[in-house]
């Protein structure tokens, strides 16, 4: 490549080489074809990895990793405080409180990753490529839903694991901590599924990624802002019943209500009084209905996309 003749020679050699490479012959594939269930699993793992930017560009790893780091860092600080402060018998906060306190971080994560997961395929019209393969609509929706919920569970569950490990290191009461940890995990699992469903629905309805991000944030924060404001007003005017029922209208207060009623959490509602068992059942039904509704909307959405 250094001299002119050299270049010409390599040029021609490379030319004939590449045509020879072309003619190396086509090898047909006789190996295994693992079918629909395998394809669904592959889509699940690809989407889950994608939620943390794995298998994507370096730039797209920044935000999800940063958010995950913040969650874990807060947990580590809490553990450090618990261990360093003499005379403490339990963690500074309950396991069930953690996700409520850090709801903004969780909101940012779902807002940035749900559009990444579904809007991309819609926007760049890759969806027909999936449906021209063995998987069907239900596989696609289930894989995306499960991947998003799993990503959120990792984001919210990992700090709880850190808190639990820390509490064991600090030699807090084992039975107490294990119960609390279990309740916390059930609560964040419910939260993950609910948020994943809502996030994906909003993202799937807005093919442009920017709108998707904004819309998810809006759904999560505006509803929470509105609900907590009206709750505060209701509390001022001594209508405690209204406070309880108003909690049904935003995702995070729904989770708050369910875990207060069934998972031994202390409510973040004004006055600290969450729903009782009866109202709690209503909360749980609403959560499950929202999850089922999200699934139904996604299925409908992809029926219309097709090829």
């Amino acid at each position, binding site marked *: 490549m250094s001299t002119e003749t050299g270049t010409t020679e390599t040029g021609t050699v490379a030319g004939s080489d*590449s045509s020879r*490479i*072309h003619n190396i*012959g*086509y*090898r*047909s*594939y006789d*190996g*295994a*074809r*693992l*079918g*629909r269930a*395998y*394809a669904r699993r*592959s*889509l699940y793992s*690809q989407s889950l990895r994608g939620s943390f930017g794995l*298998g*994507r*560009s370096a730039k*797209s790893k920044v935000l999800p990793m940063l958010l995950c780091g913040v969650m874990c860092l807060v947990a580590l600080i809490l553990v450090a405080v618990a261990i360093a402060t003499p005379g403490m018998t339990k963690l500074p906060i309950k396991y069930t409180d953690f996700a409520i306190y850090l709801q903004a971080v969780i909101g940012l994560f779902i807002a940035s990753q749900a559009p990444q997961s579904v809007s*991309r*395929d819609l926007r*760049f*019209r*890759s969806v*027909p*490529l*999936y*449906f*021209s*393969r*063995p*998987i*069907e609509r239900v596989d696609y929706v289930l894989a995306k839903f499960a991947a998003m919920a799993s990503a959120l569970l990792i984001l919210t569950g990992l700090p709880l694991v850190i808190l639990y490990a820390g509490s064991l290191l600090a030699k807090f009461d084992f039975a107490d901590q294990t119960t609390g940890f279990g309740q916390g995990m059930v609560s964040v699992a419910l939260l993950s599924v609910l948020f994943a469903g809502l996030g994906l629905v909003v993202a799937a309805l807005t093919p442009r990624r920017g709108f998707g991000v904004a819309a998810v944030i809006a759904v999560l924060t505006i509803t929470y802002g509105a609900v907590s404001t009206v709750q505060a007003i209701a509390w001022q005017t001594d209508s405690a019943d209204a406070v309880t029922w108003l909690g049904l209208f935003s995702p995070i207060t729904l989770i708050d209500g369910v875990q207060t009623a069934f998972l031994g959490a202390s409510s973040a509602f004004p006055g600290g009084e969450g729903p009782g068992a009866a109202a709690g059942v209503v909360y749980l039904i609403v959560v499950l209905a929202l999850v089922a509704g999200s699934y139904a909307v996604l299925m409908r959405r992809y029926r219309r996309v*097709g*090829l």
Partner: protein
Amino acid sequence: MIATESLSKRFPRVTALDRLSLDIGPGVTGLVGSNGAGKSTLIKILLGLSPATEGRAAVLGLDVATEGAAIRERVGYMPEHDCLPPDVSATEFVVHMARMSGLPPTAARERTADTLRHVGLYEERYRPIGGYSTGMKQRVKLAQALVHDPKLVLLDEPTNGLDPVGRDEMLGLIRRVHTDFGISVLVTSHLLGELERTCDHVVVIDGGALLRSSSTSDFTKTTTTLAVEVTDSDAHPDGTDALRRVLTGAGTRLVGHDGLDAEGLPGAGHILLVEATGEETYDLVRDSVAELGLGLIRMEQRRHRIAEVFRAAEAPQAATAAKAGVGQEKGSGRDEH
């Protein structure tokens, strides 16, 4: 490969397919029709993604209504529109698509490397797709349809948006998909000219109904036409006319309106279309031109274009006799003699 039997697809307002019966064998088959002729609807039904209103269809011997998943495992599909995310590399994308087709991870990687090389993507396959040219994107789209080594690929308008060179390369590649890879191809286009070079068989549909179905050789290889262009000289102010008289005097048939190329292109009136019966026609033209003392600008073979057939087929009387074969489109040329 593909067999349909009075296949119909009706939407509330439109009939997309109207009792279409086809039998497509191995090889490269062109599916021609104008926009809205029902090509995409047919592909959807063949992939088992959209139920037919009535009639039956089978792909690779599998029924589209009941064995859609099995069909989609053995068939590749390349959509007409853009379908590639810009932020991943061709390799990553095609590997993912291979796994979606059921290939185990290792096989998916190997097949991806092979397939991308076969469609002509080398170093650039590691770069994000967003930076690719249209031609390269089309190759990636083709690669994802071939990566699982299907028995049949359905290519929807693969030359859309390509420049003439890119078009030729893509058509050559499609030809190789069959000759070198042994994969049968169904390729749609609304451009007839492209298909005659690529396809073994051409199916023309219009308004969801079959217009005609025959092999490309039937369409184009019946006779050879020579296009001859000569200069004028002082002795013969109209060289073309002088040559025409000499040639018809020697008993040579001329094609087209009075032997002139009636395509309406600039200069077309000076091109003489001669029906070549063999070597001796070439010699006759050469000798006649030399005797007249004219300059021979060009003498080239010209095949009949499918377009001529299509134009003839569009005429009402031809449409009724659609399957009768070729022959009628040369009639106009013979009328003159």
